[in-house]
């Protein structure tokens, strides 16, 4: 009961902090509430930092008029596609290379090179290859997600306990059964460990792709607003994106809890 009380008061403080932050933002950017202490013109602060009430108004307008849904849908679809394609291909290639040392040795320097390349720079190239539609954003997201999943699977397969493997062999598992019942579940636990990262990066891929050139999506909205110095819309777009990123992260947490019941959680002691 005591810990419940603590977590409730913690929650209250978190909300208060948020309210305080917005209040400060409001007071500091309002032309008449405080005398201008940095800018010579009282309207300049609002021009550079926007105003929370205006921002809230933009968000309200987007949702009440329904104009944002099409953009959100596009961004979300790009994120999900990038995430799914990146994860599946990362899983497949990771398993393949981890189980065939010759191929792994052959591709090793290339994988290192591609991974250390700043891949966001590929966005303009993808724009040329796949056009300004969704495909180029998905492609960018895939390159970001793929490597995270790939390295985790690669690591996961190589760290399968030798005893567990020998045990499954002695119990009569064929090579295919080993893959299905030992390697893949073991790799999946590593994939899940990286899921928060990879969903976030799929989102980054989609938004950055849109920002660099597109005709729809939340990234496009932000780009448009920036072009007309509409700083309030830029902030509104950022807030909407943040909310959706949090929602995606929460979904991952739910999926993780469901699928990874076999793993000991922290706080739960592991008996050996």
């Amino acid at each position, binding site marked *: 009961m005591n810990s419940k009380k603590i977590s409730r008061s913690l929650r209250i403080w978190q909300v208060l902090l948020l309210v305080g932050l917005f209040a400060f933002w409001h007071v500091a950017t309002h032309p008449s509430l405080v005398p201008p202490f940095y800018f010579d013109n009282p309207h300049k602060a609002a021009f550079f930092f926007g105003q929370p009430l205006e921002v809230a108004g933009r968000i309200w307008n987007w949702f009440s008029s329904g104009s944002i849904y099409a953009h959100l849908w596009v961004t979300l679809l790009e994120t999900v596609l990038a995430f799914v394609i990146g994860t599946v291909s990362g899983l497949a290639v990771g398993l393949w290379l981890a189980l065939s040392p010759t191929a792994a040795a052959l591709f090793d320097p290339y994988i290192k090179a591609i991974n250390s390349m700043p891949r966001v720079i590929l966005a303009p190239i993808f724009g040329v290859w796949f056009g300004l539609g969704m495909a180029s954003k998905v492609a960018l997201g895939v390159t970001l997600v793929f490597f995270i999943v790939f390295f985790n699977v690669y690591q996961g397969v190589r760290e399968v*306990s030798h*005893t*567990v493997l*020998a*045990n*499954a*062999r*002695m*119990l*009569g*598992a*064929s090579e295919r*059964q080993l893959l299905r*019942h*030992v390697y893949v*579940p*073991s790799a999946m*636990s590593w994939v899940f460990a990286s899921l928060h990262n990879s969903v976030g990066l799929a989102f980054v891929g989609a938004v950055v792709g849109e920002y660099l050139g597109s005709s729809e999506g939340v990234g496009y909205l932000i780009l448009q607003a920036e072009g007309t110095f509409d700083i309030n819309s830029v902030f509104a777009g950022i807030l909407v994106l943040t909310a959706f990123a949090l929602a995606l992260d929460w979904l991952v947490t739910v999926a993780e809890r469901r699928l990874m*019941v*076999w*793993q*000991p959680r922290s706080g*739960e002691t*592991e*008996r*050996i």
Partner: protein
Amino acid sequence: MRVAEPALALEKITVTFVGEGTARYTAIRDATLVVRPGEFVSVVGPTGCGKSTLLNVAAGLLAPSTGEVRISGAPLVGLNRKAGYLFQTEALLPWRTALYNVTAGLEFRDVEAGEARRRAEDWLQRVGLRGHGHRYPHQLSGGMRKRVALAQTLILDPEIILMDEPFSALDIQTRQLMENELLELWSANRKSVVFITHDLEEAISLSDRVVVLSAGPESHPIGEFEIDLPRPRDVAEIRMTPRFIELHTRIWQTMKDEVLKGYEQQKNQ
């Protein structure tokens, strides 16, 4: 009358591990070990004498450098399909519940799922884990996990059971309980058992025969002792009997020097 083929025969086994460059380590040299059908044989020896290596050769997990393994007279190629292996360390599939760990072997053999489940539940009950089938390995205690592992191996009804210090990680009470349970399960359906341990008391109280290995490297059997203690046995009580103490003294005489040798070698490494 024809003498039955031994269930497991290791003939003049030598195992040499290749190290970096020209480094070689011969763990076992010219080791011969024969196990009759239905016989419980323990292999004891000082730490690091290659007991587990010998067991891995018998399981087919490790190919010997020279020598031959015969299973019921037939030379062993690849994995030993007639053997079940109980490992020293954790070997359960951590992502499967106790029940599905027990069904694993049946599943690999394409036994129908409902049938596999029924048999696994029966086995869980036999090892005293009724009602624990839905738990994951990390939710079970060490003793419970050993029981699951035992059920997982025995459900396949292997001709030969290989055990590598299976109870060494357990506390002494749990250990004696498990030893008694093992004897009970074994006597209900006598299979050949090779039991590796460094604990001489455990070896004597469980086995029909105790084989003593010399200290490594180039370990080999240096003594064999028939254990003529009456069955059924209680592993805790039998330790108090005069015959047990007599056998213990005799085997310890052989083992003592090797244990000291093994200890010296480890210290000097």
